[in-house]
C-alpha cells in the first residue's frame, strides 16, 4: 500500500516555509511528517497530510508549485537496528531509496519511516516476503492505540 505525499517548491527566501505551513494550519490540515530538501537556490518540502486533496487545492490557490508522489510508510519498532532491517530488505531486492524521513506516531514504542523508492511494486513484494506491512494513510493518521 502506498500513501500520497505532497511536494512543494520553495524559493530560498526568508518566510517561505512559514507561509506554506500557515496556509495549512489555518485550514486545519493535520501534518504527520515532513522533510525539507534544499539546494543552493531552492528547497523541496515533502509533506504527509491527513487531507492531500484539500492541501493541494489550498497550495495551488496560493500560487505554489506542487506535486503528488506515492511513497511507502513502514511502522518500525523504536529500537536500535530496526531501520537497518527494513533498508536491507529493500537493498536485497535491488530497490533504490531516493530519500527517506521519519514521522511522529501516537503508537507507543513505534515509529513510522517514509520511503521514496524507485520501484514501489518491487519494494512492496519484498516487504510482503519478510512480513513487513506498509502502512496505509489511515494507519498513519488514525493509528492511535
Amino acid at each position, binding site marked *: 500500500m502506498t500513501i500520497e*505525499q505532497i*511536494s512543494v*517548491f*520553495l*524559493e530560498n527566501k526568508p518566510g517561505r516555509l512559514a507561509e506554506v505551513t500557515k496556509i495549512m494550519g489555518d485550514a486545519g490540515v493535520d501534518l504527520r511528517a515532513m522533510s525539507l*530538501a534544499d*539546494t543552493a*537556490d*531552492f528547497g*523541496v518540502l*515533502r509533506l504527509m497530510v491527513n487531507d492531500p486533496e484539500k492541501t493541494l487545492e489550498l497550495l495551488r490557490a496560493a*500560487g*505554489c*508549485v*506542487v*506535486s503528488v*508522489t506515492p511513497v511507502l510508510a513502514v511502522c518500525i519498532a523504536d529500537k536500535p537496528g530496526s531501520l537497518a532491517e527494513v533498508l536491507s530488505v529493500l537493498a536485497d531486492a535491488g530497490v533504490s531509496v*531516493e*530519500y527517506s524521513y521519519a514521522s511522529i506516531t501516537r503508537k507507543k514504542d513505534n515509529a513510522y519511516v517514509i520511503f*521514496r523508492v524507485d520501484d514501489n511494486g518491487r519494494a512492496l513484494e519484498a516487504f510482503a516476503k519478510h512480513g513487513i506491512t506498509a502502512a496505509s494513510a489511515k494507519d498513519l493518521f488514525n493509528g492511535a492505540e
Partner: protein
Amino acid sequence: MNYYQEEMECATRESMRELQSNRLVENVRHVYDNVRCYRKMMDDKGVGPGDIKSVDDLPKLPLLSKDDLKEAYPYGLLAVPLADAVRIQSTSGTTGKRVVAFYTQGDIDLWEDCCARAIVAAGGGKDDVVHVCYGYGLFTGGPGLNGGSHRVGSLTLPMSSGNTDRQIQFMCDLDATILCCTPSYAAFLAETIIDQGFRGKIKLKAGIFGAEAWSEEMRRDIEARLGIKAYDIYGLTEVSGPGVSFECCEQTGMHVNEDHFIAEIIDPATGEVLPEGEQGELVFTCITKKAFPLLRYRTRDICVLSRKPCSCGRTLVKMSRLMGRTDDMLIIRGVNVFPSQIETVLLNCGLTPNYQILVDRVHHTDTFEVLVELTPEMFSDTIKEISTRENELVAAMRAMLGISPKVTLVAPRSLARSEGKAVRVVDKRKI
C-alpha cells in the same frame, strides 16, 4: 614616438579633412551606384551623390541601422561583384539573422593596417612576439590582430581562444611580449598566471584588449598583476573589425582611424548631429572600404568624441570609453546576448517566458544568471530530477548564446513586474 603610418596618424586637421572629403565623395558615388537599398534610402530622402561635396554634407545622408542590415541579409549591401570579394566575417549572432560583412583584398589590407597602428601604438615592432587569443574564424578579433601583427612584422602567435594552460605555456616558452584578447580574459589569465606561479616567467610588456567594455579600475588591476601597459581597442564587424579606433600611450581614449572611418555623435532619439564633447550615439561612415561600405552606420554605442591635442602626437579624433548602449543588447564576456534569445529558449523548452537576466562583474569577470519561473511540469519531488531539467535548460541556452548562464528557478509569478511589463534585465556591472 612610434607610428605605423605617421602621415595619416599625425596629419594636419586641414589635410585630413580634405582627404576625408575626397574619399567620402568617391565612396558615396560607389555606394549609390552599387547598393540598391541605400540608393533607395537616399532617393527617398531626396539626396543624390552630387549633393555630397565634402564632410560638411555628411548629415544629409540617411542613417543606416542594424535593422537595415538584417533586412539586407545576406548580400543586399555587397557593393562589389562577388569576383572582387575575398572574405566574410560575421557578428556573434543575434535574434533573427546575423550580420555578415564582406571584404575585398583592399578592405582587408586597410583593416590590417588599422590593427597594425594599434600594435605599434602599444609599443609593438618587428622584435615583438604578439600572442593573439581572440577567437579566429567568423569573429573579427583573431583575424584582425593576426593581420595587423603580420604587417608590423612581429612574430605572431595565433593561439585563438580557450585552453588557458596551453596559452600560458606558449606565452612563457615563446617569450610573448604583447597580449591581444578580451579584457575579461586578460584578467582571468593574470589571475591564473599568478596562482600557478608563472608571474616571473612571462615577458609581456603590453596588452591590447577589446571587444567588450571595461573600466579604468580593471585596466589598472590587469596592469599591476601582469606588469604591463594595457590598451583599449575598439571596432565592429559592420565597420571592419577591431582597429576602427585604438589607444595610444596617453591611455585617455581611442584614436579613430579617420582616414578610413568618419565618426559622428548623434542624438539617438532624433538622429541630429551633436557638437563635439557631447555624449551620444556613435555613427561611422566608411570612406575607403569597397565591399561593405556602410555610410552613417549607427553603432548603438554611447560615447563622446574629443579633438583635444594628444601628447602622443596623433591628430586623429579620440572617442571615449563606451558609456552604454542604445538598445537592449548585452555584451557578456564579450558575447552578444539579447534577452529575446533567452525567451526563445524558454519557449522551446516548454516553459513560460517569465525570466530575468542578472549580470554583474565579480573579480573582473562577468557573472550571468537567468532567473526562470518554475512550471508544474518542471517540478519534481526529487532534487535529482529538477537538476536534470535545469541542466537541460542551461545546455539549450549555451547552444543558443554561446555562453552558459547559471539558471536559478524561482516561484511562478515571483519576478518583478512594473506596470504589467516584466523587468527583463538587471545589469549591476559598474563600467
